[in-house]
């Protein structure tokens, strides 16, 4: 399964330093989905690599604190994880690891299972971590867990923008809609990005986006306080169903590196181009 040349992380790396201190901070984007298994972590990793290709400094934070699997997707075996940062065993700097694809990761590690409920400690730690690393990167991607738990909602609340990942499957669309509804009503999100993964034909993403928008306009907008602008779904891209994805996942490699010309890789690159014009 694992390729001999795939690097295994053993040592911490130097963290990129912002050119002008305090000048800019990373745009924090939370990826969430409602339903699990729609390719959220796949998208986080490949989107990060595609953004890195465009010269951006990118960090992916595994905010799937309950069931982390970014390490599996990236074929990394971290010795140091967020768990060690939370418990004070290591400094935050030491937990920021290089990933194949030219970006950085903060991995949760399975030791974080006990943080799958939102305690004040988890709140404070996540906020502190994001604030600390934000000046050093252009993009921080938060790969959140499945479901609409309070940890997921809190992680999303720390982000500047939220991207909902869905597939054309009815269960995924229903859960994506439920997520959008909660984000619009509880967090007053006005602009929500949408990526439709595993589309069967070009333009299916647009159809699904329009359908979701229709239901949002009919049912969610009337729930909002008077005078509040209606939530808008922005179709940031669609990723076609592509056998290359399965191949890359099985080999535990990044699709954008292994099969850069594939339809799905081009879909991911188009999303990166929209996020980092």
């Amino acid at each position, binding site marked *: 399964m694992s390729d001999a040349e795939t690097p295994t992380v053993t040592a911490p790396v130097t963290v990129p330093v912002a050119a002008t201190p305090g000048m800019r901070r990373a745009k924090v984007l939370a990826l969430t989905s409602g339903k699990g298994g729609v390719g959220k972590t796949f998208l986080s990793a490949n989107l990060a690599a595609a953004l890195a290709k465009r010269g951006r400094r990118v960090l992916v934070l595994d905010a799937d604190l*309950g*069931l982390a699997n970014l390490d599996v997707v990236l074929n990394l075996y971290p010795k140091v994880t967020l768990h060690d940062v939370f418990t004070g065993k290591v400094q935050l700097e030491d937990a920021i690891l290089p990933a194949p694809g030219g970006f950085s990761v903060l991995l949760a590690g399975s030791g974080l299972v006990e943080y*799958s409920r939102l305690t004040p400690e988890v709140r404070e730690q996540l906020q502190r971590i994001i604030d600390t690393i934000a000046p050093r990167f252009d993009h921080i991607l938060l790969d959140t867990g499945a*479901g609409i*738990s309070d940890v997921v909602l809190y992680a999303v609340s720390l982000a500047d923008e939220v991207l909902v990942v869905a597939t054309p499957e009815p269960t995924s*669309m*229903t859960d994506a809609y439920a997520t959008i509804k*909660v984000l619009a009503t509880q967090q007053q999100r006005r602009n929500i990005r949408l990526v439709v993964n595993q589309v069967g034909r070009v333009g299916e993403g647009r159809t699904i986006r329009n359908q979701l928008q229709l239901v949002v306009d009919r*049912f969610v907008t009337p729930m909002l306080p008077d005078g509040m602008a209606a939530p808008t779904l922005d179709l940031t891209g669609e990723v076609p169903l592509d056998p290359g994805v399965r191949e890359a996942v099985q080999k535990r490699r990044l699709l954008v590196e292994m099969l850069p010309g594939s339809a799905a890789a081009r879909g991911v690159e188009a999303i990166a181009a929209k996020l980092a014009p």
Partner: protein
Amino acid sequence: MQLLQQSGRVLPDRREVTPVVWLQAVLDGLCELSSRDPLTGLSNRRQFELALASEIDRVARAGEPALVLMIDIDHFKKVNDTHGHPAGDLVLKAVAQALHECIRPMDTLARFGGEEFAMILPNCPPSFGLAVAERVRLKVQARSVAIAPGEQVSVTVSIGGAFAPQWVRSSAPLWIDRADQQLYRAKTEGRNRACLEQPTVSLVSAEEKGLLFGTSQFSDSDLA
């Protein structure tokens, strides 16, 4: 051995069975002893925590809903102070019996400590939760305990409950803690009541699903 005899466990006669059979009976007796609460005969806290840990694994794997209830006798200290500790013990036993009558074979019922009991209800849908907790509360309330000839007392319980987060792993202490917070709420809202943690997920109504999928395209069963 003395412990086993004191617990009232009947062991086979050593001269009549093989040493293996006898040893197995002793081991079974010791296991039983280490997992039971001596006063009420319910599971003890250790057994409860083991059951809870395996329930968490099952929920994370299967995604089935499960409910934990923490049940505390209201004003139990008053029973002890007014009628004495033997009466208190009788009340504990009676409440344990009433609770036992509420559970299914697959459920776990334990004396968590003092006058607090705990229940694990696997495969309990969220829509049933409050009804189940209320049934438990009413069962205890309806029971009167004979503490002396011609002297009866009755007690009430406060109940707090929390569902396991489906698909997402939790830990035993966190799950208990969430149920305990609801128990605290039940106590502060006046006792003799059941409070369950409110689910954070807003459900998608049938109308919303209908519009989302266009009613002609999918039948209801496709969306279930």
